[in-house]
């Protein structure tokens, strides 16, 4: 496959450069490549901008001509069923969140990843338990695949005491290092340098770990994104960026966000290979990450994967999507990743309707149980707000100050 060869070549090129540098000898300064280059033919050289057309990958169809997923996979039937469970869990957790939101039980907004679930689920599923992910709000699927229970998500959204943040921060803004889940903060792009640091440390600690940072077409515009990826790339660290091209950053379309036709075209700027994948094909997402992670893990360095997808809901539940042109939503509804995968499993004979309905029923049960658990949690005690700014064994909690040394 063309993409594999490109990746191989890039990896080899990087390894050759490293060899040449090392050949300078122990103690001698590494060659910077700053020696005088061989003379060229022209007074100046013109480099045209990257391709102006958006790349598109194949649309696999079943016998009835309907969209399914790629057949090129090593996934076992059991794994494929697991993927289905994760997809449905992601969707149903979000549906439950909307349900709770409409009952005013959620504090703040709900951010759906409707139509994008395959990207987060497929890519995260290809990783090892010892790998790390930094999902963003549209990547609930990755959070769940890493082993965070829906009950924690529900408790977070309802600002409850039993949530992992104990009410101090919202939705997925928490983490669990033991599960390889590093939760985001709201400032986009900030997680890229953090994940670079994760794998920098892993290298120092001689641990095998790949870091995956999710980002959107909008988040890629930030300085922190650029600085983080550039640093990871030059250090040849195993950082994989999953750039979800879902076409909107709040109301801002890609045409106002950046000048490239494919987010993957930005990879060249960092000296790293890129991939383009159908973000709504969960099997393809799995396969592309499998390949990218192997490349990164093997010493090839950082990789940029662009997942072509679409955000079918607004930025959050309150967003009425007035900026969407007519027909766009309908076109992408036809490419729904869950329906498509469902169809794929049946038509390829991996599962029966009964089996899939059984999985769905299990997922529904889990979602209901976990939501009930979260709802039963109390709200946090007010004074808890004072704790954990610092390690309280060294700096006391920041209690509400008393005026003239007295309470009211």
């Amino acid at each position, binding site marked *: 496959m063309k993409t594999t060869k490109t990746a191989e070549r890039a990896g080899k090129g990087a390894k050759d450069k490293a060899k040449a540098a090392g050949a300078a000898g122990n103690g001698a*300064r590494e060659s910077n490549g700053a020696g005088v280059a061989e003379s060229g033919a022209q007074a100046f050289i013109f480099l045209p901008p990257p391709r102006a057309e958006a790349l598109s990958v194949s649309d696999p169809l079943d016998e009835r001509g309907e969209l399914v997923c790629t057949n090129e996979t090593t996934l076992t039937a059991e794994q494929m069923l697991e993927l289905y469970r994760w997809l449905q869990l992601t969707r149903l957790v979000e549906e439950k969140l909307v349900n709770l939101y409409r009952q005013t039980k959620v504090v703040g907004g709900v951010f759906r990843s409707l139509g994008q679930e395959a990207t987060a689920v497929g890519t995260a599923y290809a990783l090892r338990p010892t790998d790390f992910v930094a999902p963003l709000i549209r990547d609930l699927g990755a959070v769940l695949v890493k082993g965070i229970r829906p009950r924690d998500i529900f408790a977070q959204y309802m600002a409850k005491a039993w949530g*992992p*943040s104990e009410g*101090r*921060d919202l939705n997925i*803004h*928490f*983490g669990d*290092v033991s599960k390889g889940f*590093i*939760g985001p*903060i*709201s*400032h986009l792009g*900030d997680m*890229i*340098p*953090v*994940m*670079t*640091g*994760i*794998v*920098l*440390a*892993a*290298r*120092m*600690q001689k641990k095998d770990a790949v870091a995956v940072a999710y980002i959107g077409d909008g988040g890629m515009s930030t*300085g*922190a994104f650029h*600085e*983080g990826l*550039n*640093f990871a790339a*030059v*250090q040849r660290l195993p950082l994989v960026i999953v750039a979800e091209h879902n076409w909107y950053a709040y109301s801002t379309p890609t045409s106002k966000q950046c000048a490239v036709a494919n987010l993957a075209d930005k990879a060249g700027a960092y000296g790293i290979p890129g991939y383009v994948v159908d973000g709504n094909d969960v099997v393809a997402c799995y396969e592309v990450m499998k390949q990218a992670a192997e490349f990164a893990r093997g010493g090839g360095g950082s990789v940029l994967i662009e997942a072509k997808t679409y955000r079918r809901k607004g930025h959050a539940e309150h967003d009425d999507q007035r900026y969407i042109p007519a027909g766009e939503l309908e076109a992408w509804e036809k490419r729904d990743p869950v329906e498509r995968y469902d169809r794929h499993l049946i038509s390829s004979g991996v599962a029966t309707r009964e089996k899939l309905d059984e999985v769905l029923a299990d997922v529904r049960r889990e979602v209901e149980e976990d939501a009930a658990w979260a709802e039963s949690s109390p709200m946090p005690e007010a004074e808890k707000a004072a704790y*954990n*700014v*610092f*390690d309280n064994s*060294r*700096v006391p909690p*920041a209690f509400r100050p008393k005026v003239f*040394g007295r309470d009211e």
Partner: protein
Amino acid sequence: MSTAAKKEHKSNRPERGGVVTFVEAIRQGLWEEMERDPSVFLIGEDVGSYGGAFKVTDGLLDEFGEGRVVDTPISEAAIVGAACGAALMGMRPVAEFQFIDFITPAFDMLTNYAAKCRYRWGAGIAAVFRGPCGAGVHAGPFHSLNAEAFFMNTAGLKMVEPSTAYDAKGLIKAAIRDPDPVLFFEHKKLYRLPRLREEIPEDDYTVEIGRARTRREGRDLSIITFGAQVLTALDAAEELEREGLDIEVIDLRTLAPMDKEAILASARRTSKVLILHEASRTGGIGGEIAAAICEEAFEWLDAPVVRVAATDTPVPYSPPLEEYHLPQVRDVVSAARRLAAY
């Protein structure tokens, strides 16, 4: 070790203790912590083969290797972010800003990520963020910053600024061992100042973060200060002593969390307080200190709390302009005289 041998190996392991400059004390502290704890590493621009713009990290690359002394691109946000990520993995990074003026591109990562991680999900960031601060060296508006006021209002960041070689070594060790993010400001004027050369102990010692130090005991008037201005205060105190005024000088050493007890104790002892800092007056941390004294020691005061600080301008470049901008010994002397006579 003989002088001849010392000259041969320029970047060898420094002695423990001995008579050192401010910068040598910091380097000793870094070296000893890197020896003691394999999770400590350095990260920043030109910290490796160049040894740092001010040579603070000189010799550490040769000793500990590229694995633990990381030269980065010009990317302060990435430096801080990567330090945070490494800290999450249990490492103890010491990140350098080539000049503290360049802490500003990392303001987001410091205040939104480093400062809030423990609070939000219990993940303390045990990282040190250090660099040369301060004016008075004709370096102009972009190489002279005193940044403490930018960060004092952010819960979750500790800030220290030593003014002696002893404190510099003790505080860098304490900062590295601290479980939370510490901004470590080193006034660039102090690095090689002969006046600051002193004998420091051989043994492994730390200076507690959050403790001020009384540099000079007095009964008539307190000067609360830190960093290079401690020297201005001491010089002013000497001059005022000849006029019969007994000046107390408190070196804060830690700016956050501030040693409020020491400040209030001094205010109660002298009843007249002058706050001295090199950063501009308006919005400088002097206001915070003054407010705390007024709230909690008002009855002891015999005069308003007075601040001596730089003018409200960017730091100018040309020497006469910079001298006008910065607090001078004569400014402190004249303010103290008026305060004493109040």
